[in-house]
């Protein structure tokens, strides 16, 4: 709350009062979240939707710096931002729409999709735990890393079940999503994976909602497959990951 800016004394005093009032209401957290994202999104659009100009990454860094500069605790910020966070629930339910629209292709491709889902999810989880363990991460960190390819609310639930820190998991989930969305194109191009259905489904499996958002910006078809993967992976992970990750964590 350092309102000691070089302004006229009276105005500065009043400004400080206003700041004290506003910083305690949810309005400010919500507004800065939307403004920062809007700004990051304009930047992203101006870059021609370049994968490295990911709007989530820019918003998170911008908001983090803003909170740090104004000395605002995360809990205060979240009182406003929770309204945005809350929409993750209805958005997950809303995935039923693109899922239904891809149902005919889904029926035809069920075996490749199921195989990719199981292999991709298990590979991401087991490699995260294994690499983290080799490099000496603590057990709570490993448990927080394990579900990081799953969409936030599900991942946080899994982390809690296996002894991780849900809020750390949320951060790792978002980082994974940004990384996947930003780098998948280069990886797929290098491996000559060109089918938009495959690219989309892999992105949704490994990089959940942020990967899905990215896929929708590339094409409707890629987005639908990513959304499908995100929904299925949430379901599959919720059912299977606590057991698999729990077993691995017992060994380490």
């Amino acid at each position, binding site marked *: 709350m350092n309102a000691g800016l070089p302004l006229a004394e009276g105005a500065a005093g009043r400004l400080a009062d206003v700041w004290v009032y506003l910083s305690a209401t949810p309005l400010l957290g919500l507004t800065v979240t939307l403004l920062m994202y809007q700004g990051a999104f304009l930047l992203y659009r101006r870059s021609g939707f370049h994968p490295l100009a990911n709007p989530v990454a820019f918003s998170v860094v911008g908001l983090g710096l803003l909170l740090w500069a104004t000395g605002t605790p995360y809990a205060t910020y*979240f009182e406003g931002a929770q309204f945005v966070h809350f929409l993750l629930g209805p958005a997950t*339910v809303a995935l*039923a729409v693109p899922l239904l629209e891809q149902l005919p292709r889904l029926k035809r491709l069920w075996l490749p999709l199921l195989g990719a889902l199981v292999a991709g999810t298990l590979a991401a989880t087991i490699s995260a735990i294994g690499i983290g363990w080799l490099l000496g991460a603590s057990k709570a960190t490993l448990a927080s890393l394990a579900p990081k*390819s799953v969409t936030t609310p599900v991942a946080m639930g899994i982390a809690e079940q296996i002894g991780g820190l849900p*809020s750390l998991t949320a951060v790792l989930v978002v*980082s*994974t999503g940004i990384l996947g969305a930003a780098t998948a194109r280069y*990886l797929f191009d290098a491996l000559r994976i060109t*089918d938009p259905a495959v690219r989309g489904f892999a992105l949704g499996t490994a990089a959940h909602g942020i990967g899905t*958002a990215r896929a929708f910006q590339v094409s409707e078809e890629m987005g639908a497959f990513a959304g499908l993967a995100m929904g299925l992976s949430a379901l599959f992970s919720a059912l299977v990951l606590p057991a698999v990750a729990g077993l691995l964590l017992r060994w380490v």
Partner: protein
Amino acid sequence: MIAALATLLVFQLLGEALVRTLGLPVPGPVLGLALLLPVLAWRPPVLAMVRPTAQTLLQHLSLLFVPAGVGVMLHLQRLGDEALAIGVALVLSTWIGLVVAALTMQALMRMTRRSEPDAASSEGRS
């Protein structure tokens, strides 16, 4: 839009309630999705009503992850202490997940295409 939002919330609520009552291991919104799916399939008017709002929500999906991402502030200490392990595990496992999922799907698609030649014509462009 209000009706659509209410529908999504009702199904989320149903999902949450069932998960709690039956002690199911899936998250409420995921069960809500599974419950909504047959309703949309059998009732086209419901699908038409929900579609615009669902599309708007999903178009801005990445915004919804921002508040959780800012939570990085709470974990700077741990992230600093274990930066190498967390960073390397995060980057490599994400790439491994992407590549394994994509290659598995591609390989299985080729296999199933070979066994069903009639599917090849519609699937062939890539």
